[in-house]
């Protein structure tokens, strides 16, 4: 391989080019081959080689982070390199790593600040200057990193205030690139923990941008304003006249950016004006992407802030007719669900539905207008469901309209399915109708099988009115319906089929597996072949073959109760995977241009007036025009001032959402939560103790999280079941979305522990000693010192319990005096969930004694390597409080536990996993044999040896809390073929890496 040869060359140029190639195109599998060579190059005497080596490692980090995790130390070295270029190159890696996990790199904040200070202060060689600005792109990169590090972290942010201030001050040169730096500075200032002085300066900068005559700066200013406005809406007030001007800017890009800004400041008072502006822009633009994007935003705003029913329906009509078939299907789904589920007030709901029905009837009255298919589908559903709100005689008329549409050739067959479903629903409400008879006659002979099916259904239901009425009840689209998802009524049919010699049903994955193994029969690759014939006991067993209702046992568990009304059947195709519907086909050319805008005026007369007068006013005097703008401004920026006054820390969502979506699952969830609140609040304890409070909140959250997990699991299961259950799934996912925020809120509240908990706490504290003894039985690491000073020393130890990782910190007091309020705290880390184990909060540490702090660590999402940082603070007799920081490295391996299963279970599990990785590993000690190698793996990686059959071995483990991974290995001479399978995609890769290390190391 040429690259390897070039990397070893003594010619600088060749090495240089080889490194450039490696960092551009390089296959993942080849990394181990060149990694040591590149690591060598980090020590090279030429800075260009060192720089390129760092960039190559960056590439590796991008494509296979696991493989370079052991060289993180070397990245730090690169960051401290004496050459600016090498240091700058390492920033790319750090930017990426910090973006993924900012808590692990807080200790580097000081270094980044120092570097930036040096760059800003002009300490770099002159050739790094660009138009006499020192290394602008480097400054920008550093500012971005600082922004990530300082986010929501006061202590870290405080370190960078000075340098940010200096950056803002220095960048006063009037050159484009300084504006780029300023822009980044402003963003950083608004991302980190706020400081008033800096915010003011940044706001002034934004003002300079926005008011600039240069259009590029104006754009940048608007972008910055859009960003900061979420934190400080009053800034929009300062620049309102500029914003109004930008709204009418000839450049559509500026206009669009302004709309984006307005979208962020929308509230219930200005929604009509802003949506009006957006619709205006929408009618002008032709690009599909813009339409999709804007339509989504309008729909969102309309749902959130609609002032009244009429406006809401009109706006949604505009959305549907413009967005039509390109918009996101969620918009129409949400709209229909909103109508169906309704709000708190039943009378209001009926009014809204009635209004929708009436407005659609008016729209359908207009001749020669073509509506998008999606819009017609929405109409037909609403008409089918809610026409009963009209007079009895009107229903017949509705059917006639639907029939007319059905006979229209330009309507897609999918929409026709919706239409006929609507007709079916309406038919059950009237006694007899000629139109229906005609329709049945027409479509029972239709060439479209789907339509013919619907027509026959209608025909037979029509004959049995009683059945039809019970099947299609009025206004019950949200009611629960019992469905026998296990299809047990088919058991007899299945049994009959089996007795006549039909093949039993096999689940999908089994069929696939069989097909695969058949293919493998022709494959001469020894590994695959032997695997399929070696035979796990579970493999050929008929465990997967099932009879009758067992086949759908899964669905029986979860799908028994469906919230979905059956009436939607036949039209559910819309929610299928196809996404967009086929484009509408027009017969005549001139009609295609007719904009399918709703014919009624938009129900916003008041605004229309201001706007139309505004148009006229252009011919009038300048002052008049100004006045109009002021008027528009006042309508746009209403509600931004005092009422939603500066709210820098948290964005309190004070606006009440008129169209709040109702979700039943969510409600029960919040009830649960509130009952939990009640329990805690009712038992008020007079002893305020911050530690206990925190603990309590964590446990509460803990419970919530588990609930959530369950729900998420359920929704996944459902998703895989079938598409008919989609609405239910949506609800569930809705719920899992809303619940975290619910618990986030609970953080704010102050909980008092109940007396009983305090009591149990005391008990547990006394049990602490025995707890420690208990832990001695589990596997644990020896305590290692992680930090110390002359008074205390902190060491940590990991205890690998069966169900969790227990971190124990031992704080030893080396002095003679007594320590007051010794306390240990762990910074919250992204990947972990920490639960304090009892016994961690003793009032004082006795002299010459050791205090233990225990934390239960749970992994929230898989990672390979992460740091857990924290600090110890204590108080000597009368001196000040001393704080000592430390960090502990945790690897995924700490969360791997043996999975004790039988060979048969192994076989079953093996088939159900989709992610697999295979690799051959050469054993250094070929004499060792399979059993001893597996033994090593068992000891070092905590894998469970399931079985050893000849020269094959089966291993199983699980990643806490419960992600299993299976390993199949086979020994040929001195090569061990490893085959991993797991339900988690990244786990096999990681385990392979660890196994390789163990085997090659042994």
């Amino acid at each position, binding site marked *: 391989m040429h690259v390897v040869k070039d990397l070893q060359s003594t010619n600088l*140029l060749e090495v240089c080019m080889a490194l450039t190639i490696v960092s551009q195109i390089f296959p993942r599998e080849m990394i181990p081959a060149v990694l040591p060579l590149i690591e060598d190059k980090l020590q090279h005497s030429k800075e260009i080689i060192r720089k390129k080596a760092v960039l190559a490692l960056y590439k590796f980090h991008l494509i296979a982070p696991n493989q370079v995790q052991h060289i993180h130390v070397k990245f730090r070295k690169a960051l401290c390199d004496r050459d600016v270029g090498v240091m700058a*190159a390492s920033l790319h890696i750090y930017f990426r790593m910090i973006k993924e996990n900012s808590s692990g790199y807080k200790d580097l904040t000081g270094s980044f600040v120092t570097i930036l200070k040096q760059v800003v202060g002009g300490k770099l060689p002159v*050739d790094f200057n660009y138009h006499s600005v020192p290394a602008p*792109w480097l400054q920008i990169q550093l500012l971005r990193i600082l922004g990530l590090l300082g986010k929501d972290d006061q202590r870290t942010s405080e370190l960078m205030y000075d340098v940010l201030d200096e950056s803002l001050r220095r960048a006063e040169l009037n050159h484009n690139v300084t504006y780029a730096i300023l822009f*980044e500075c402003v963003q950083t200032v608004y991302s980190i923990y706020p400081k008033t002085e800096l915010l003011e300066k940044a706001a002034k900068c934004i003002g300079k941008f926005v008011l600039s005559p240069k259009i590029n700066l104006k754009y940048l200013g608007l972008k910055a304003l859009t960003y900061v406005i979420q934190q400080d809406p009053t800034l929009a007030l300062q620049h309102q006249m500029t914003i109004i001007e930008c709204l009418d800017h*000839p450049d559509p890009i500026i206009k669009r950016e302004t709309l984006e800004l307005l979208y962020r400041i929308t509230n219930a008072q200005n929604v009509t004006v802003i949506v009006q502006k957006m619709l205006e822009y929408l009618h002008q633009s032709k690009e599909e992407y813009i339409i999709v994007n804007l339509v989504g935003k309008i729909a969102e705003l309309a749902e959130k802030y609609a002032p009244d029913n009429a406006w809401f329906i009109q706006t949604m009509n505009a959305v549907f007719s413009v967005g039509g078939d390109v918009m996101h299907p969620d918009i129409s789904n949400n709209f229909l669900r909103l109508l169906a589920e309704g709000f708190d007030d039943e009378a209001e709901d009926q009014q809204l539905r009635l209004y929708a029905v009436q407005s659609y009837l008016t729209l359908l009255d207009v001749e020669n207008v073509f509506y998008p298919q999606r819009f017609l589908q929405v109409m037909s559903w609403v008409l089918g469901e809610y026409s009963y709100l009209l007079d009895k005689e009107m229903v017949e008329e509705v059917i006639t309209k639907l029939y007319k549409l059905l006979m229209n050739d330009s309507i897609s067959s999918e929409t026709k399915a919706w239409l006929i479903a609507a007709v079916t629903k309406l038919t059950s409400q009237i006694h007899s109708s000629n139109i229906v008879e005609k329709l049945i006659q027409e479509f029972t002979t239709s060439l479209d099988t789907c339509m013919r099916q619907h027509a026959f259904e209608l025909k037979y239901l029509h004959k049995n009115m009683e059945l039809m009425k019970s099947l299609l009840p009025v206004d019950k689209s949200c009611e629960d319906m019992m469905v026998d998802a296990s299809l047990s009524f088919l058991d007899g049919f299945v049994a009959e089929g089996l007795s006549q010699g039909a093949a039993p049903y096999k689940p999908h994955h089994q069929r696939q597996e069989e097909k695969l193994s058949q293919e493998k029969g022709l494959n001469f690759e020894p590994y695959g072949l032997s695997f399929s014939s070696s035979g796990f006991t579970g493999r050929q067993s008929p465990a997967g073959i099932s009879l009758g209702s067992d086949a759908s046992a899964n669905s029986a568990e979860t799908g028994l109760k469906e919230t979905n009304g059956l009436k939607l059947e036949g039209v559910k195709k819309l929610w299928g995977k196809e996404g967009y519907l086929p484009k509408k086909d027009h017969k005549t050319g001139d009609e295609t241009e007719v904009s399918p805008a709703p014919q009624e005026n938009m129900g916003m007369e008041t605004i229309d007036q201001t706007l139309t007068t505004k148009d006229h006013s252009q011919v009038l005097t300048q002052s008049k025009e100004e006045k109009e703008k002021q008027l528009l401004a006042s309508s746009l920026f209403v509600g931004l001032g005092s009422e939603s006054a500066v709210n820098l820390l948290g964005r309190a969502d004070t606006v009440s959402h008129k169209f709040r979506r109702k979700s039943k699952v969510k409600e029960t969830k919040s009830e649960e939560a509130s009952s939990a609140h009640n329990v805690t609040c009712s038992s008020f304890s007079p002893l305020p103790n911050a530690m206990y409070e925190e603990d309590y909140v964590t446990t509460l959250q803990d419970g919530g999280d588990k609930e959530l997990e369950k729900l998420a699991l359920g929704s996944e299961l459902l998703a895989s079941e079938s598409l008919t259950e989609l609405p239910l799934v949506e609800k569930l996912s809705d719920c899992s979305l809303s619940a975290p925020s619910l618990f986030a809120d609970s953080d704010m509240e102050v909980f008092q522990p109940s007396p009983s908990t305090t009591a149990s706490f005391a008990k547990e504290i006394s049990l602490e000693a025995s707890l420690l003894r208990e832990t001695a039985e589990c596997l644990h690491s020896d305590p290692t010192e992680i930090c110390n000073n002359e008074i205390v020393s902190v060491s940590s130890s990991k205890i690998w319990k069966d169900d969790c990782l227990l971190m124990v910190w031992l704080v030893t007091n080396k002095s003679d005096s007594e320590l007051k309020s010794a306390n240990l705290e762990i910074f919250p880390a992204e990947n972990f969930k920490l639960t304090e184990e009892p016994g961690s909060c003793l009032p004082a540490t006795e002299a010459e004694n050791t205090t233990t702090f225990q934390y239960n660590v749970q992994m929230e999402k898989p990672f390979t390597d992460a740091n857990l940082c924290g600090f110890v603070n204590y108080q000597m007799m009368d001196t000040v409080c001393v704080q000592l920081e430390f960090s502990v490295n945790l690897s995924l391996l700490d969360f791997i536990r043996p999975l004790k299963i039988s060979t048969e279970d192994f076989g079953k599990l093996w088939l159900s996993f989709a992610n697999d990785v295979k690799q051959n590993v050469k054993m250094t000690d070929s004499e060792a044999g399979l059993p001893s190698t597996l033994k090593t793996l068992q000891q070092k990686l905590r894998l469970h040896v399931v079985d050893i059959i000849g020269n094959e071995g089966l291993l199983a483990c699980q990643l806490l809390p419960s992600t299993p991974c299976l390993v199949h290995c086979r020994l040929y001479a001195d090569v061990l073929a490893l085959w991993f399978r797991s339900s988690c995609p990244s786990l096999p890769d990681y385990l392979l890496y660890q196994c390789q290390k163990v085997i090659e190391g042994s």
Partner: protein
Amino acid sequence: MIKFFLMVNKQGQTRLSKYYEHVEIHKRTLLETEVIKSCLSRSSDQCSFIEYKDFKLIYRQYAALFIVVGVNDTENEMAIYEFIHNFVEVLNEYFSRVSELDIMFNLDKVHMILDEMVLNGCIVETNRARILTPLLIIDKLSES
């Protein structure tokens, strides 16, 4: 992140294209035509940043040649705008008064310069002297 780097002339002919994210070959031509169309349609008093689909285009015109850079929305537009100028300054230094012809006939060298400056969608070097070092060594070697 930079998604692609294009040099296109007013007639719509692509002089150089470099993608930092995989785009299928037949889609590239389509993308390039659309990109140049949207750049050409803009006048000089309009903003140099265009929102195109889910990413942004930043363009700068030098005589008949457009340099267009596509970035995602995490990028600082002005920094890229100035980066384009930096790139042109480097070309100018190397070719002494660069022209479209220089780029056409020395495409390999232009690519080398670009590779020194941008890797994996990140700006990795902006120091003019350092960008040109490897190229100058190669030139010296081929002379001797």
